[in-house]
């Protein structure tokens, strides 16, 4: 890791370029093909066509936050109060047949230096129900699918679906959000009634949708060349829901690999290496009438190999967990308390070995984060929600190196205050 860090700092910071994402185009093509296939396979009479369109639903949301930090940058391009966190989403769904659901969502996300707000296809899928009975249900999803990882990943960018303005960062990193966000591929899902509740399973395979942030997070900088998925990503999850949905337990994980394709025109870049990533989450949630307790533990074994002499083969296991309590004294008011800890290397939790290896260029703080959060949320009506959150951080593991390129300047103890307004329909 120390060597990796040195390479990253020896080189001037590459401009944050936006790359054309061929994956987006693929998803666009795929959804168009799905719709075309549907229309050719089912030549509809005008009456039937009318009934198909009555099932059309449109939903959307828009959120804007204001964020202030005592030190370090978080969802910010400059020091001071940042308004660089905006999320706008619009989705449509159609049920042309009782067993077929077509759905798509466009998401524009502005997040400091990490995302510039360019609209992207968040999901575009066909859900085919193969079996639907009170005892068992099963089906297939094809297209761009949101990865059902942990409790919140599927709707991580939809503000009112999770407590807190920011998801627990030690499990749901925003600095590498895209790596585990969605897959262009296929998924099988099944659900069966067991005596005590429902048991569900999902298996998914396909190509991970990645972006430049992934390169910043896993290679430490944006090197000349392209980081692409190496083969398919595989994802699996098994979940238990108690009969009245009070208790929810799950294990979910994804195995993926990234290949670096170095630019031939660059004077200096890395070798054509691969990064193997395994990401596992254990989840538990208990929901009572006025309170909910949630805890998740994530482990991420990583392996870098073949990047050349300046970036030797390396194996590291990252880890993170959080415990979160929410209390609703009134149905429209929710109070939040959350504690989380995350480590870049579970064998060097205080980051000291890393700091020594960096020979004074870095402190230990980019290697761990301990975060305490408190927040309040008010659902004013069915369309509007506002919330506020305070966080105290020790460490800088969750920060993006894109926003904080000089690890020598990171401050270990820092505070964050944020407010957010959300509209939905």
């Amino acid at each position, binding site marked *: 890791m120390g060597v990796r860090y040195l390479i990253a700092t020896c080189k001037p910071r590459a401009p944050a370029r936006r790359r054309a994402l061929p994956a987006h185009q693929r998803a666009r093509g795929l959804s168009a093909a799905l719709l075309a296939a549907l229309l050719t396979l089912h030549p509809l009479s005008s009456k039937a066509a009318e009934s198909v369109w009555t099932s059309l639903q449109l*939903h959307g949301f828009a959120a804007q936050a204001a964020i202030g930090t005592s030190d370090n940058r978080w969802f910010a391009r400059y020091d001071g109060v940042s308004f660089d966190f905006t999320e706008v989403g619009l989705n449509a769904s159609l*049920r042309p047949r009782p067993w077929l659901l077509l759905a798509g969502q466009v998401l524009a996300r502005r997040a400091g230096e990490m995302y510039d707000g360019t609209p992207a296809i968040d*999901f575009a899928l066909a859900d085919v129900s193969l079996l*639907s009975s009170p005892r068992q249900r099963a089906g297939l999803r094809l297209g761009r699918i949101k990865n059902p990882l942990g409790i919140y990943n599927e709707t991580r960018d939809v503000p009112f*679906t999770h407590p807190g303005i920011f998801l627990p960062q030690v499990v749901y990193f925003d600095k590498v959000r895209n790596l585990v966000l969605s897959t262009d591929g296929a998924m099988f899902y099944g659900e069966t009634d067991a005596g005590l509740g429902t048991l569900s399973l999902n298996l998914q395979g396909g190509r991970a949708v990645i972006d430049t942030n992934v390169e910043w997070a896993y290679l430490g900088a944006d090197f000349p060349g392209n980081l692409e998925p190496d083969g398919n990503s595989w994802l699996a999850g098994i979940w238990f829901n108690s009969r009245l949905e009070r208790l929810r337990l799950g294990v979910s994980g994804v195995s993926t690999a990234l290949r670096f394709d170095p630019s031939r025109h660059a004077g200096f870049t890395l070798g054509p290496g691969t990064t193997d990533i395994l990401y596992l989450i254990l989840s538990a949630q208990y*929901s009572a009438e006025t309170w909910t307790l949630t805890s998740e533990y994530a482990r991420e074994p990583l392996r870098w190999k073949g990047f050349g002499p300046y970036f030797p083969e390396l194996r590291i296991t990252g880890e993170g967990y959080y415990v979160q309590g929410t209390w609703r004294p009134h*149905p429209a008011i929710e109070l939040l308390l959350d504690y989380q800890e995350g480590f870049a290397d579970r064998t060097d939790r205080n980051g000291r070995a890393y700091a020594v290896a960096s020979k004074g260029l870095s402190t230990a703080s980019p290697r761990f984060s301990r975060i305490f959060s408190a927040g309040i949320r008010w659902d004013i009506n069915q369309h509007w929600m506002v919330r506020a959150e305070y966080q105290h951080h020790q460490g800088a593991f969750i920060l993006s190196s894109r926003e904080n390129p000089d690890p020598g300047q990171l401050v270990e103890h820092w505070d964050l205050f944020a407010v957010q307004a959300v509209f939905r329909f």
Partner: protein
Amino acid sequence: MPPGRLDAARRQAKRAGLAAVSLLRGLICGLLCALWPPAAAVQDLIVNQDSAHRQVTQNEARLYFTLRLQRWPDGQPVQTFVLPDEDPLHVAFTKNLLGLFPYQLRSAWDRQVFSGTGQAPTRVADESEMIRQVATTPGAVGYARSAPRDPRVRTLEVR
């Protein structure tokens, strides 16, 4: 102070204490009632008259209202109608008939709508609109305070 008067004083103090406790209890009850309006007493699950079903289990009812079961056993698509989240009838129905809390339903719907894995139930403004919609929509399921008089709507027994 003679022992008799001491007892009387003690009794008086005790009464005052009890009065304070009952006042406090009243205040807490009042506050709770203001925060959570009392639930409507009886609710019925209602379906369109075309439905072939006479009864469902509570588990099945939950599956229809959490949108996880989108077809009736005869293959007809389920059309779910609901009142606004904070409507006392919705709260009572969700808790008493489904055994869930309204926020759990809201979170299940949002998760499906915003991940492309389901469609939201149709929201209606009040009970009379609910009955009208269930009466005129094939495959419809909803709820009412008591069995509606509309002949196009039937109640479904929840076992």
